[in-house]
């Protein structure tokens, strides 16, 4: 069963303007997102830039203020409690950032970077702390001599692994990974992805995996949600999405992914153009008058698609 539920999460940023610099409008960065998380599973969040993926992640972990909605963790509502720094929730939910470089304080040594969550959450003795750090280094496959180095002395992949080590330092239940590999080169990306999977297997961690790279998501995730303008257009098991996409937006996204089959590229191009044309033609059917995504409707146990009431009949 799911250990954590996110219900109708909304994050709206005010837009100020007008004569008295009052709030004139809102950016609906996240506009009603509902999710459930189970142990040891990976949940993918895909969408184009600005669709609200990061905001969702940040809202869950407490970096953004939630406008409305609830987060229930192990049966308890933590919507507001998550902003208390050293709560159990904060210990159990950790984050990996897209830019591993900027996610580590450049003026701190690896030792201090890794120790930060341990010191805050676990209150260990210096020896125990040191032991834990060594364990972490072992987990990410690095030797102890890195402890005195500074972040900039590592390659992107190494840094991302350190980032992961830091995230798992206090045995979290869930890790929110916001584009953990999009800044990395292919070969390094592979290292990190492998590594994330290893950890998951070992510790039964759940991931909320945010990415715009459908290839990576497909590789990593059990469940995938496609996001558009702060809402989900489609959510379901990996197979649901990749083999049976229902929403036109999902379709379009999938067709745009480059494939490494050069022989078939011309067909793909034609297909792509077809989908694009279809999208242009029919998109109004998939969004309401305000251009908003319709609420999700289940079309199978695992598969939900956003659609209008009349649309449902058609399916």
């Amino acid at each position, binding site marked *: 069963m799911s250990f954590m539920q996110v219900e109708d999460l909304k994050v709206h940023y005010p837009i100020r303007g*007008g*004569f*008295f*610099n009052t709030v004139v409008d809102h950016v609906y960065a996240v506009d009603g997102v509902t999710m459930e998380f189970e142990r040891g599973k990976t949940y993918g969040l895909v969408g184009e830039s600005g669709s609200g993926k990061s905001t969702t992640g940040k809202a869950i972990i407490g970096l953004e203020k939630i406008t409305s909605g609830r987060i229930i963790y192990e049966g308890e509502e933590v919507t507001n409690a998550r902003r208390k720094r050293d709560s159990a929730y904060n210990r159990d939910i950790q984050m990996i950032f897209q830019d591993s470089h900027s996610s580590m304080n450049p003026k701190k040594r690896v030792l201090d970077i890794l120790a930060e969550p341990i010191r805050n959450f676990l209150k260990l003795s210096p020896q125990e702390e040191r032991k834990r750090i060594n364990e972490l280094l072992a987990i990410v496959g690095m030797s102890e001599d890195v402890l005195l180095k500074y972040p900039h002395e590592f390659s992107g992949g190494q840094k991302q692994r350190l980032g992961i080590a830091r995230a798992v330092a206090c045995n979290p239940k869930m890790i929110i990974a916001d584009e953990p590999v999009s800044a990395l080169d292919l070969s390094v990306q592979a290292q990190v992805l492998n590594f994330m999977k290893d950890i998951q297997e070992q510790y039964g961690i759940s991931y909320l995996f945010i990415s715009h790279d459908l290839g990576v998501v497909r590789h990593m995730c059990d469940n995938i949600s496609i996001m558009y303008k702060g809402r989900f257009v489609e959510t379901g098991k990996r197979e649901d999405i990749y083999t049976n996409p229902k929403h036109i937006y999902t379709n379009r996204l999938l067709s745009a992914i480059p494939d490494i089959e050069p022989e078939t590229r011309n067909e793909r191009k034609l297909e792509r153009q077809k989908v694009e044309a279809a999208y242009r033609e029919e998109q109004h059917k998939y969004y309401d008058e305000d251009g908003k995504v319709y609420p999700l409707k289940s079309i199978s146990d695992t598969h939900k698609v956003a659609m209008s009431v009349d649309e449902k009949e058609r399916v």
Partner: protein
Amino acid sequence: MWKTIIRRVLIMIPQLFILSLLIFILAKQMPGDPFTGLITPETDPNVLEEMRIKAGFYDPWYVQYYNWIANAAQGDFGQSYTYKKPVADIIGARGLNTLLLSLLSVILVYLIAIPLGVLAGRYQESFLDKSIVLYSFISYAIPTFVLSLIFVYVFGYRLMWFPTSGTVDISLDAGTWEYYWSRFYHLLLPAITYALLGTTGIIQYLRTEIIDAKTMDYVKTARSKGIPMKKVYSRHIFRNSLLPIAAFLGFTITGLLSGSIFIETVFGYQGMGKLFIDSILSRDYSVITALVMLFGFLALLGSLLSDIILSIVDPRIRID
């Protein structure tokens, strides 16, 4: 755009109000009063006392403040105790002098600083650049008053190239060509002194901007279009670096105003800066408060002006 300007102007009202309160209270705290300077054995102390009472110096401060601000709001800053004239009249005449001085100084500052800054940035680390940087540092390091003193002494008295006091030759009739020339001529030495010292900021800023701009991607784009280097500099690098300078204008004027205190004092130039120091010494409250208010107002205006210029010049922050 207009909305933003109007809003900014409206914000200025409470700001000026706070400033007025602040400066009024400060001024009242100053020891002595305009009549202290009048005491001689032959002035009757009772007469002075009576004048103090008449001037309202024994009223509670808020009453005094209310009277003052109520009049000030209508543009009446009272009478100067020293000059026995409406403050507005005095500041009006001096203001023009300072305005002219500032204007000429600004023009000179820009005339000197822009080419130097541009050259230094363009030929970074060359001998030329190093000389310009040295100059800009020296101009920052020399206290205004030292250079002014030396200039007055050398160019005014030793070489006698420039007049050393006043704003115009009295024997000339207003309106004649000679009259305007004389005014200009009187302004020249203080303005040059000032300009020589006021260039540091702009030179440094421009230099850094240009060095930065040189490495920008858009400069590479421009070069990839195959346009000559000269044009790359003039259309892309200089333009992009210079435009923010335009926004400095507002602040430059503000800076010049406070610098005018030194320049005008040394050159005996009858402007607002000198008026301020004189009024401080003679405790001419009405003038002091009015001047600080005016300077504050001009400063606020200057920063508004800067914002407006910047927004006109830089499409990215166009305010609407």
